[in-house]
C-alpha cells in the first residue's frame, strides 16, 4: 500500500489591504491545515498495511518546511517541485506538475485536501485524477481500503453517500476526517535524515508552456460600501436591541 499525498504551502493569517491599497499577505507561511487530515490517513493506512507515504509539494524553496512537517509526522519521503516558471501558474499547470510528480513512484492511493486555504478552487485533485486515469472520491469524511478497493463516506449537502471504487484511486478529505497527530521530538529528528527530492519542471518532463498562466487580472474596483452599523457594549440594553432587531425583521 503506497500512498502519495499532496500538501500545499500557504500563507497563514488574514490578508489585508495596505495603505497603498496593495495586498499584504499574512506574515507567516505554513502547511495548509486542511492537508494534515490526508497525511494522517496515509500514515494510518501504511502503518496497518505496510508501504510508503510520499508527500508532494509544489512551491518556493521555503515550501520544503511543509514537507518537513509531514516527514516529522511520519511520512517516508518528500518531493518538492520548485521552478521559477511556476510562479503564477493556475490550476491546470499545478495539476500537470502534481500528476507528473505522482507518476514517479508506484502508488495505490493519491490523497489531497478538499480545497486549499488560499485558493479555494477545489478542483486540482480531480484534474490530477483525470490526468492519471484514476477514479476519485471527493469530500470524503471517512476512508478505508480493503481488498483492493476504496470505501468512503462522501459528504453530501444533506448527509453522506457510501461510495466505493477500485484502486488505484484518488481521494480528497474534508476537515475532521481524521485526527492529525502532532510530530514527536523523535519524529522531528528523524525527518532530517529522510529523503527530500527537489525537482524542476524539466525533471518532470514538462516545459514552461505546460504551466503558462491562462488568467490575468483585467480590472479591480472597490465593491459598493455598506453603511456601517452600530457597536454597543453587552448588557441588558444590548440584549433588548438584538431582540428588537429580530422583531423588526419579523422573525420573532
Amino acid at each position, binding site marked *: 500500500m503506497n500512498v502519495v499525498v499532496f500538501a500545499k504551502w500557504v500563507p497563514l493569517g*488574514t490578508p489585508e*489591504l495596505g495603505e497603498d491599497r496593495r495586498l499584504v499577505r499574512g506574515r507567516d507561511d505554513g502547511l495548509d491545515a486542511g492537508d494534515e487530515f490526508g497525511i494522517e490517513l496515509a500514515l494510518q493506512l501504511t502503518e496497518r498495511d505496510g508501504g510508503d507515504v510520499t508527500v508532494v509539494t509544489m512551491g518556493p524553496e521555503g515550501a520544503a518546511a511543509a514537507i518537513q512537517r509531514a516527514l516529522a509526522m511520519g511520512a517516508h519521503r518528500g518531493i518538492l517541485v520548485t521552478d521559477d516558471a511556476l510562479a503564477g501558474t*493556475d*490550476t*491546470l499547470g499545478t*495539476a500537470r506538475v502534481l500528476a507528473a510528480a505522482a507518476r514517479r513512484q508506484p502508488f495505490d492511493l493519491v490523497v489531497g485536501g478538499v480545497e486549499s486555504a488560499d485558493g*479555494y*478552487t*477545489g*478542483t*486540482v485533485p*480531480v*484534474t490530477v*485524477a*483525470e490526468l492519471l486515469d484514476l*477514479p*476519485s*472520491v*471527493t*469530500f470524503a469524511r471517512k476512508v478505508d481500503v480493503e481488498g483492493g478497493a476504496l470505501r468512503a463516506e462522501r*459528504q*453530501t*449537502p*444533506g*448527509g*453522506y*453517500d*457510501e*461510495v466505493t*471504487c477500485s484502486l488505484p*484511486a484518488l481521494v480528497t478529505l474534508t*476537515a*475532521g476526517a481524521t485526527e492529525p497527530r502532532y510530530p514527536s521530538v523523535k519524529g522531528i529528528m528523524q525527518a532530517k535524515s529522510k529523503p527530500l527530492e527537489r525537482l524542476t519542471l524539466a525533471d518532470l518532463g514538462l516545459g514552461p508552456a505546460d504551466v503558462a*498562466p*491562462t*488568467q*490575468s*487580472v*483585467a480590472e*479591480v474596483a*472597490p465593491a459598493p460600501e*455598506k453603511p456601517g*452599523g*452600530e*457597536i*454597543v*457594549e*453587552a448588557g441588558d440594553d*444590548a*440584549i433588548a*436591541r*438584538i*431582540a428588537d*432587531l*429580530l*422583531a423588526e*425583521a*419579523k*422573525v*420573532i
Partner: protein
Amino acid sequence: MATIWVVAELDGDAPSTTTLELLTAVREVADPLAVVAFGAGADAMAAAAGAHGASTVFAVGDDALTGAPRAQATAIAALAATHAPELIVFPASYEGRDVAGRLQALTGSTLMGNVTGIVAADRARTEILGGTFVVDVALEGPAPRIVLMKPRSIEAEASGGGPAEVQRVTPEMPDGLRDAAVVARHEEARTGPSLDTAPVVITGGRGLGGPEAFAMLDELASAIGEAAVGATRAAVDAGWVPYAYQIGQTGKTVTPEVYVAAGVSGALQHIVGMKKSKRIVAINKDPEAPLMKLADLGVIGDVATVVPALTEEIRRRAGS
C-alpha cells in the same frame, strides 16, 4: 456573441435554482445559450430553461450518468468538440467541481473558481478580500473556458422565452473507464429548518471556545423558531461540528433576514458566504473583529453570557 453552455443541476425533475441563476447571469452575453443536463429528468427542463434564456437543452445519456463525474466530463468534452462552445459555466457544487476539474484535464483549458458574475465569454468576475473588491479576470487559452459560479451570486429571473429545443445525446464512453460508484445514500436529519432557507442563521466561530457551546446556539435557534445553526471553517476544522455546517467561500452561501454571528471574527473566507444577509448581528469580545465593522448591530461581550440572555429575552417576549 458567443456560444455559452450552462451545466444544469437537477432538483427532482426541475432545474435547481442555482441553474436558473447561472442562466440569468450569462444570457446577456450568450448567443446561443444552451443547457447541458444529465439523466432521464433532463427532458423536463425545456420550459424552465427556455424561460430563462436558453434555446437548447442537450439531454445527455440516461440515469447511469447521474452522479458519475468521469462519465459526465467525458460526455461534455465530446459534445464540446462538436459544438465548440467558448465558455462552459458550472455551479460551484460538489458535483460541479468534480466534473469541471476533470473536463479541464480533457480540454486543457483554463478554469476559474468562485465566480460571482460573467462579464463576457472570456471574462469573469470574482470578489476578493471578503467581497470588498471586485475583480474582473481575463480568461485565456483554448476554448471551452470553464468557470464555477457560486450559488446565490445573483437572483434568477425569467426572460420570458418559449421552451428550449431538447436535443437528446447518447455519449460514447471509452471502454474500461473506472469511476466511483455510490453504494448507499444517507440523509442526515438536521433538527429545524435548513441553512439554505432559514430566515435566521446563527453561526458559531472559534470564539465559542469548544464544541459544547454549540448547544447554546441550538437553544437560541429553538427559541427563535425558524432559525438554523451554522459554523465557520475554523470551527469545522477544529472538529466541533460537521462540514455540512460550514458557511463561507466554500461551504454554503446564506442570505437570511437576520444573521447572528457568535464568536466569529470574520475571516474573509467566511464573510463571502454571509455578507448578503439582510441584517447582521455580531457578538464578539473583540470590537476590532472584522465582522463587527460589517454588522448592523455589534455587541461587545462574552457570547457565553450574551447568547443565553438573548434566548431568555426572546422566550420572555414570546410568553408575554
